[in-house]
Each structure stands twice: as structure tokens, then as C-alpha cells.
């Protein structure tokens, strides 16, 4: 039996086992926790993650402490509420060994379900954010809660954890493929520069961007983003990188969170003296940068990277 922890983080596996054996009717519910960056707002690198807590149970379940990894407990104090947009999971398949497996989680999201307002006006819909790839590599934890009608939460057990590796979107739902951590070794190409012994701070870029043009103007499209800024020489930003949303100064990757999404710039021209046109290699959803501006870094030699990798670009995270 999986280890069961109660709301205080105490191991109550033995009690839960005998409790479940003694009952002919059990109240069980799945708990879904998605953790990601606030990619739709003015988040800085030090801001906390944003958490979605949902349950497929019919009532809200408050959980004090949860297991998030082997021997790792987190004092969460969160209330998992029944989701207005139903969320269900597929079967869990566990294997012993090094084989990576995944579970499909289906979220029946309406187009009108928006991300909470975090400074980006108006917040985009969650479904669109999935389609644009912003939830890629966000972490998902799936727990099972055992509930007693009289005494409340008996305990929770961690059933699955891993990143959302991909999402399939159609008119009525988003199907997320949530892989196990083993996926990191089996299926993910790890850039060589990612493996280094020192601090993870600033491995690729300077903390402060070269340019910080103001939010894109109305009329921007996904392939032609128009900003207001002081003169930038035409073509000067070629193969530079931009952050899609917010004033992200400290961009160090954080444990258990997906890296900030960056887009690569194909070219730039300035028209009318102050209208900077940026052409990304791949389409950018204007909603994600509208009103919050972007940061631009150019490729150049660095001294903060790992030895031997002094001039490496940020990883390709564009969509």
C-alpha cells in the first residue's frame, strides 16, 4: 500500500489500511495540483509559483500537508475545490525499472475559463494558454484523498507526479500527457550546458536585458510585434531572445517549475523613428505580451556560464 499522510504530515498508512478494511463504503477523491509560473503576468523570477487545485470529488477538500516526492512533504494548506470545468484522469500504469510512463489527464475546459488576473489585461483563456504551449513542463501532482464523513480527511497518498509534456486541445477539452520523472532520463534531450556543478543562476544570460521596449501596440500580430522604444538599429536584434510576458529580470530556472518561455527574434526594423517591429521566428500570441512589454537579450559572450560554455544562448523554449 502506498504511504498515506494525514493533514499534519504524519504517516498514517497503518491506520488508513485498517480504516479502509473496516469500511464497506469509502469516500475517495482525486486531487489535481498544477504548478506553473505566472507566465501571464508581471512575474519576476523570485515570485512564487501559481497553483491550480482541483478535485473530481463533489465537495471541497482542504489538505494541510502533502507528499510531493519520496520522503518529501510540503505544508500546503490548500483547498481543492470541485472544478467548474471537469477534470478526469486515465489509468495509472506503474512499472519497476527505468521505463518512463505517462498518464492522460483530461480537462474539459471552456473557452471562457480565464486565467486569474495577474496584471495582464485581459487574462487569456486557460485553453488558449495550453494551445500556445505555456503549460508545457508545468508540474502536476495527482493525489488520492480518503475522506471520512464524520471526522474529515483521513489522509492523502501521492499517486502520480510529473511534468505536463504535451497537450492536445480540441473544442471541448484539453488532454494533458503527464509523464513520470523517469521521462527526464528516457525521452528528454538534455542540453550539455544544463549539466553543470555550480549555481543555476544565470547560466546563459545576463540578468538584465539589453532592451526593454514598452508593451506592444494595437495592430501587432503574432508575427509582427510593434513596440514603442528609442531607436534600435535595423537588424540589430537578429537571433536575440525575448521574454514573452512580464518584467522577468532574474530568470534563473527554479526547481520544480518550467523555465520561462523565451522567443527567438528573426529580425527587426524601426519605422517612423519609434515603432520597433520585431519579427519572431515562430508566432507569438500577442495577448501574452500585450500591455506588459518584453525584455530582449542579445547573444554575446558571458562569464557567468559553465566553464567552456561562455557564449551560449538560452534554451529554445519558443512555441
Amino acid at each position, binding site marked *: 500500500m502506498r504511504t498515506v499522510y494525514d493533514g499534519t504530515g504524519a504517516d498514517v498508512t497503518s491506520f488508513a489500511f485498517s480504516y479502509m478494511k473496516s*469500511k*464497506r*463504503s*469509502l*469516500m*475517495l*477523491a482525486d486531487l489535481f495540483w498544477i504548478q506553473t509560473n505566472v507566465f501571464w503576468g508581471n512575474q519576476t523570477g523570485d515570485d512564487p509559483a501559481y497553483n491550480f487545485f482541483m478535485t473530481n*470529488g*463533489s*465537495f*471541497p*477538500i*482542504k489538505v494541510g500537508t502533502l507528499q510531493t516526492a519520496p520522503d518529501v512533504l510540503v505544508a500546503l494548506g490548500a*483547498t481543492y*475545490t*470541485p*472544478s*467548474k470545468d471537469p477534470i478526469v484522469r486515465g489509468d495509472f500504469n506503474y512499472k519497476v525499472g527505468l521505463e518512463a510512463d505517462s498518464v492522460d489527464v483530461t480537462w474539459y475546459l471552456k473557452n471562457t475559463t480565464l486565467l486569474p488576473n495577474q496584471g495582464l489585461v485581459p487574462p487569456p483563456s486557460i485553453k488558449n494558454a495550453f494551445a500556445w504551449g505555456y503549460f508545457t513542463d508545468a508540474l502536476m501532482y495527482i493525489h488520492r484523498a480518503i*475522506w471520512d*464523513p464524520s471526522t*474529515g480527511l483521513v489522509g492523502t497518498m501521492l499517486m502520480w507526479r510529473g511534468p505536463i509534456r504535451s497537450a492536445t486541445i480540441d473544442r471541448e477539452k484539453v488532454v494533458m500527457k503527464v509523464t513520470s520523472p523517469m521521462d527526464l532520463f528516457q525521452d528528454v534531450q538534455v542540453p550539455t550546458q544544463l549539466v553543470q556543478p555550480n549555481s543555476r543562476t544565470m547560466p546563459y544570460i545576463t540578468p538584465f536585458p539589453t532592451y526593454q521596449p514598452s508593451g506592444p501596440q494595437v495592430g501587432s500580430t503574432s508575427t509582427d510585434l510593434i513596440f514603442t522604444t528609442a531607436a534600435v538599429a535595423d537588424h540589430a536584434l537578429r537571433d536575440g531572445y525575448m521574454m514573452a510576458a512580464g518584467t522577468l529580470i532574474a530568470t534563473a530556472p527554479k526547481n520544480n517549475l518550467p523555465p520561462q518561455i523565451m522567443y527567438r527574434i528573426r529580425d527587426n526594423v524601426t519605422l517612423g523613428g519609434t515603432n520597433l517591429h520585431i519579427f519572431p521566428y515562430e508566432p507569438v500570441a500577442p495577448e501574452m505580451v500585450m500591455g506588459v512589454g518584453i525584455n530582449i537579450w542579445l547573444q554575446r559572450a558571458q562569464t557567468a556560464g559553465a566553464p567552456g560554455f561562455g557564449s551560449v544562448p538560452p534554451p529554445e523554449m519558443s512555441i
Partner: protein
Amino acid sequence: MPLPVFPIGPPSVTNNSPYVRSHTWPVKRTPRWNTGVQWTPSGVRTTVPYYANNPLWAFEFTYEVILDNPNKLNPLYQSIVPPTDLEILQAFWFQAKGAGNEFVYNDLGALTNQPLAAPDVNGYTEIRRLVGSYPTIPLTGPPPTFNPVYESVQELNGGTLNVFANNVATSNYTVLGANTISPYEGITIHWNATPANPITANFTPYYRCVFSEDTQEYEEFMYQLVQLGSLKIEQVRVAP
């Protein structure tokens, strides 16, 4: 924002309430639970109740005659172009887009003196209605004790909530939405100070509903007289 109110009520109150007239008995009320069942070969049975505390209701109405006569308009509906009863029903059906949009249905009327629980350890009290009571010992024995059974109230649709602490009206609380406070499915109130017992409340509960089907068969069996054999609606759970 309040949702549209279903313009049908029980036949007993239809003719003097703001409802479409002339719908007939029977009215079917079906509370539905949802249970996962696992049988063992030996016959031992284990269940998982997916609806933990409250069922979802389904209702079915019958209209033997719906008036579509512009000379016999429903006097309770005032507008520039007063609709006939059929036009009221069909307009509501259209705005709901069949089974698409939610609305509320008042099946219970206004309730008074509903007993609420004392605040929990965090100072919350759920708004609920008394469904009934059942005896806990055989009726042939000593006087039975009765266990009250409650149903969470998930929808007031903007209506007034009057709470009484020891029979004295109080407003020393904050109202919170349904399914936001663990473990309550209903609307909850958070007390600013511990109230005196007993706590009771007056309110008009609604069920958040949708039409069960995307089609309706209106049969005009005589001139300006329409029959609707079955009109089904069903409750949906309110989620934050």
C-alpha cells in the same frame, strides 16, 4: 449575477404565481446518487459514493394544454408585446439554448426556520435545508429518536438570506460561495463572532439546472392549444 428563473412551478401554485399556467400533474422529482460498486465473488460489496453529501435532482413536467392565444395572455407577464404562455416557454427554451445554458429552478418555495449547525472549529456554518428525519431504533421499542437529514443549499440566486441566532436576527457574518469551504458543498457563512445557539435561517433555495435534452416537441393539437408531453430539467453542481 442572478441566473434566469425557470418559469414553471408545481401545479398547486402555478395559477397564482408568476409561472406559465396550466401544467398538470404528475411532476416527477428524481434525486440521483452516483455510486461506484465493486462486487466480490463471495457477494461482499464495497462502494464509493461519488456524490458525497447531496444528490443531483431531475425534474419532469407535463403540459396537457399550453395556451397560445393572444386574447388570453398571462396577466403576470407585463411587456410591450405581452407573450402567450407558449411564447414564454419557448423564449426561455431559446435563451437557454436547449441544454446549453444554466438557469435556476425553485422547487421548494420560501423556507423558514431551517436549523443550521453551530459554527465549526474554523467559524463556518453551511446553509442547508432540512430534508426530513428517520428513526434510529425500531418503532416498536421505546420512543424513537430521529436523525435529521439535510441538503446543502448551493444556490440562492441573489436572494435574501436571513439568519437568526437564538431567534434574534443577525448579520455578523460573511457569505461565501458554494463549494469553496471544505468540506461544505453548500453556501457557507463565516461568523465574525461566535453566535448564540440555536441558529436558524430563512431563505429561498434554488437548484442550478439545465434542460436535459436539446429538443422539445410542442404538439398543437387544436388551434392555439399546444401540448408538451414531457419537459425535463436536471440539476448541475455549483462549482467555484
